[in-house]
């Protein structure tokens, strides 16, 4: 598995491709009506403002010399009305475009988040969380403007340029050619700068992502850093990362700003040549006074949109580095997905069958080999064995967190059918399983909402009942705000055992047909554990359960104990049978009893 560390740049797999643009265009296309409307309004607004110089001309050439105050007022009113119209059009356009740009980033973010929900554990396991986060939040924010206003403005500028070009050429072809002659040079400059610029911004986004990754990790692991008195070392790592950000940014800045610098310079050079050419021709009476004046003003009116375009292009190249990252994430393959035509899993009986199951987390690695297991409804199964033998893997496969390498797992349903877990929807599968994971994650919110996560429509009474069953009610009741006590990811005030109890209540509340407890009570004291076992006894009736535990005393009463090792089941039977067998389980059990 290719893993990534906070200070490693993520190599972008694909070179720049137009498909990114095409893809971005799909987000824009949903709003094409609004965007066309906005474009139309912009054009109308600029037509309205096009007339204003004309009016100024009339006023200064006719009304003023004639000392016609009446006409002056008359034109002033028309002028103001035109401006007002232009303002109203611009206003509507701004409002539309604000919606469009917000909708675009809303959609991109939604799709990105949606895809993240489908990605396999291995995706999350192989990179720092901060690198994923920065894509969802920061990168998406960055691309919004370029995909909305950036596009409209480029179209407007292109229209502008086209209009000016027509005007220029209709006026004087030679001088117009002089003005346009600068363009190939400019395009050449942009072309040369482009790869450097792209590389520089990619580098910058990489460094920024590294910075964020380390930041997130440092905040989450801050307690550890403090206890290990590691802060100074961490600060020097951060210094290195921040330094890399700064260097990458500055490198990008030097290149990026060269674009407008060259377009502004070229504008003036073109202007110079225009006048030299104009006056030279004028000497031969070729070009009229009015023409050269007009052409002079066209220089800036032609080159200004070009400069604007260059700026838009600039931020485009800058943001495409982010866009690539976003799409790259959306392209991450979904390993475990609903099969085509996957059906809803009907209510289960609790009967489970592992049929010649093979599995390894990575290519060439074998964790489970030819595992066969048949579990009757309501049976209580314990999985024991050395650390790392694959106990968790067995239940992970049942939940279909990973796809099998071979064989199949089937579940018996109440309607009599047998369903292969790879042929039913993930949602319908997992919602009938209750899995208590080794690490008990607490979401920020209150205790109530954390337990309710198991079943969203659970009433408060049901939540309290579940808490009572797992012996969590007592301590929750003693907290300052009881079930409303705010908690967060880091637990704030909850001990590890208490977090585990909350997670346990959450699992129980989901009312699963098959219950999976992976070291569910490892941090809980023996007495509470026993009380908990009594408390959930009634709840376990009629449910199939898989229990993974190291403390064998907690699983002694299970219907069947499976000793997992060497990629399969080495021993199976109830406690008495296995003890009589005097095999691996017997060794493990007696060792534990002696130790105590």
């Amino acid at each position, binding site marked *: *598995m290719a893993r990534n560390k906070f200070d490693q740049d993520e190599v972008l797999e694909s070179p720049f491709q137009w498909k990114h643009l095409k893809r971005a265009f799909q987000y824009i296309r949903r709003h094409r009506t609004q965007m066309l409307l906005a474009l139309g309004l912009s054009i109308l607004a600029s037509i309205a403002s096009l007339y204003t110089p004309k009016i100024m001309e009339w006023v200064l050439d006719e009304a003023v010399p004639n000392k016609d105050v009446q006409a002056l007022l008359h034109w*002033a009113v028309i002028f103001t009305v035109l401006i007002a119209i232009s303002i*109203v059009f611009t206003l509507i356009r701004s409002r539309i475009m604000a919606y469009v740009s917000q909708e675009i980033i809303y959609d991109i973010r939604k799709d990105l988040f949606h895809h993240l929900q489908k990605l396999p554990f291995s995706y999350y396991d192989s990179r720092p969380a901060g690198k994923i*986060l920065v894509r969802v939040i920061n990168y998406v924010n960055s691309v919004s403007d370029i995909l909305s206003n950036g596009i409209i403005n480029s179209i407007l500028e292109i229209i502008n340029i086209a209009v000016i070009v027509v005007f220029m050429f209709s006026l004087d072809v030679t001088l117009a050619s002089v003005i346009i002659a600068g363009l190939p040079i400019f395009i050449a400059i942009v072309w040369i700068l482009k790869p450097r610029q792209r590389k520089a911004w990619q580098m910058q986004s990489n460094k920024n992502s590294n910075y964020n990754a380390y930041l997130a990790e440092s905040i989450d692991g801050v307690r550890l850093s403090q206890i*290990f008195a590691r802060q100074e070392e961490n600060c020097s790592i951060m210094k290195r990362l921040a330094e890399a950000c700064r260097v990458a940014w*500055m490198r990008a800045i030097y290149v990026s700003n060269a674009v407008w610098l060259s377009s502004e310079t070229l504008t003036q050079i073109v202007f110079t040549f225009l006048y030299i050419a104009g006056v*030279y021709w004028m000497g031969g009476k070729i070009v009229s006074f009015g023409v050269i004046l007009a052409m002079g003003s066209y220089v800036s009116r032609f080159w200004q949109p070009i400069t604007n375009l260059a700026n838009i292009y600039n931020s485009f190249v800058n943001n495409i580095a982010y866009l690539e990252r976003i799409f790259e994430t959306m392209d991450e393959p979904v390993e475990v997905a609903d099969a085509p035509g996957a059906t809803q899993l009907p209510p289960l009986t609790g009967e489970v069958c592992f049929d010649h199951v093979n599995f390894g987390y990575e290519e060439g690695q074998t964790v489970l080999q030819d595992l066969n297991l048949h579990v009757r409804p309501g049976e209580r199964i314990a999985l024991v064995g050395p650390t790392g033998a694959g106990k968790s893997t067995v239940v992970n496969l049942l939940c279909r967190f990973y796809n099998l390498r071979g064989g199949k797992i089937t579940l018996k349903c109440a309607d009599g059918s047998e369903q292969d877990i790879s042929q039913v929807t993930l949602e319908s599968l997992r919602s009938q399983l209750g899995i208590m994971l080794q690490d008990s994650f607490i979401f920020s919110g209150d205790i109530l909402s954390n337990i309710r996560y198991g079943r969203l429509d659970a009433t408060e009474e049901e939540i309290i009942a579940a808490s009572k069953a797992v012996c969590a009610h007592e301590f929750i009741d003693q907290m300052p705000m009881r079930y409303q006590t705010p908690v967060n990811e880091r637990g704030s005030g909850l001990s590890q055992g208490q977090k585990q109890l909350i997670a346990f209540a959450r699992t129980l509340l989901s009312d699963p047909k098959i219950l999976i407890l992976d070291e569910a009570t*490892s941090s809980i004291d*023996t007495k509470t554990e026993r009380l908990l076992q009594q408390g959930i006894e009634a709840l376990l009736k009629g449910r199939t359960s898989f229990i993974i535990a190291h403390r064998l005393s907690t699983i002694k009463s299970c219907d069947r104990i499976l000793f997992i090792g060497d990629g399969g089941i080495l021993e199976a039977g109830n406690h008495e049978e296995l003890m009589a067998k005097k095999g691996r389980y017997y060794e*493990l059990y007696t060792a534990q009893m002696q130790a105590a």
Partner: protein
Amino acid sequence: MQPIRWLWGCADKKSHVRIIAALVISAVTSLMLLVNPSLTATLVDEVIIAENPEPLLGILAVMLIVKLVREGTRYLMIVLLETASQNTVYDLRRILFAKLQFQDTRFFDRNRTGDLMTRMSADLDWCRHFISYMDYAVVDCVFMFLGTLILFFCISWKLTLCLAVVTPILMLITKLYSGKVRPLFVAMRERLSEMNTAAQENIAGNRVVRAFAREKYEEEAFERRNAAFRDSQLAINKMWLSFYPFIELLANSMTVITVFLGGFFIILGEITPGELTIFTQLSWALSNPMRQLGNLINDTQRFATSATKVMELYYGRPHIADRSDAVDHADMQGAIAFKNVTFHFDRQEVLHDISFEVKPGQTLAIMGPTGSGKTTVINLLARCYDVSSGVVEVDGCDVKSWKLQQLRGHLGVATQDVFLFSDTVEGNIAFGNQSLTEEQVHDYARIADADEFIRKLSDGYDTLIGERGVGLSGGQKQRIALARALAMEPRILIMDDTTSALDSETERYIQEQLRHLPFPCTKIIIGQRISAVKDADQILILQDGKITERGTHEELLKNRGYYWETYALQNDLPVEGGAA
């Protein structure tokens, strides 16, 4: 404005020089914009109308030079500001990161990761934006506006006064709009932080999400945040658009006043047509800065909102820090004493009147029900929290008088919640002690019985393990965490439920190894299993924050209390008659 003063204070001397130089360039070059239009007028008068090509090249050369100098210095200006802003942000990142590293546990109990991330990324970026762009944009606008006004004033003070009339209106609008839009920016910043938190927790808790098939629920919850963020942006836009027509009208009024009132003034004979031409040609130099106003107000408010958030971090002081009279301890013996320690967390009593002593080299075990305060004892010893009353002493000296780095530098904690970093296995083990040789790292891994499985990983000790060590089993993580604690070569080794996910064989092996550590140390073991605690010199039973039993294994068994009961439960002995 306070945020600006703060930011200026954060920039170093060199950055100050750079910023001032850049702003001078900005002021001068914004005025230079007025030069070329005037030269064009000269060009028209003297070359074209006069049909005299002689001064042409001269004027063109001057114009080209003016332009080149202007754009060249503008480029320099941008480089100066970018450098200054990058250096300042670089410093801020370092300073704020250090602040975070040294903030106390309570701070992190209160602040969500997502919010802290927002401060350190998006909010800091607005500080960068302020230095690299906003300051010169303001100077540009002000100088262009004032410069033009002065130029106009020299030509016709009457007409200029009429133009200047809008200035107070402009100021009023600025004030009004700033006040109205500020709370919207604060709200938007909150929505951003909430969205960040939602995404961050979804990523961190992705296993739980999958396990409960809550993807749809998470998506809906995130979409709500996503939509709230969008709406908060739109609210700002709406507010802006309600002011936009007025600002735009005022900007355009520059042209209207110039042309029509100017025309009227010509009729009255107040000014000449030639003078009005200059007015009309340069009226953009008044209206453009006004058009910029809206953006500048928005950016300023956004900056102020973000800077305030960053300043909170910047000025935040941890409650737990080295006291000025902290004593220097070159070494630690490992003697621990809790004297009548009571501790409250959020008004709730967690520990009550705890007293015990451990001599150097001894082993203390703590056992007790979930939530009885076992880990809190460790937290107080490491001074993650300060006691509410009583004293915690190490080597006969109050931990509050120790230097934190020295105190913690001698502790080796194998924490209950195993947090691993996205680093190599070796990097994780040597986390607290980088001076270790590779050989030593392997030795400590061997003591923690981790060497064998580590060698089986794809790249052995150089295998990158993801954050939180996902991909490793619970027992494997615990052993790496133990090796990490051992690698500190601590004077006090703390094992907080370190062997709970280990099978008993492994546990016994590790216990045996711990008896022959290559360094002397006091040990504190927190455990639920009798096997983990029974060999300790002293065992404390903690219930509801109070010590209810204490003694050796044998003594406690005679006691027939909680310890005996646990012993009985774990050994399948009948419990009746016990103090249940």
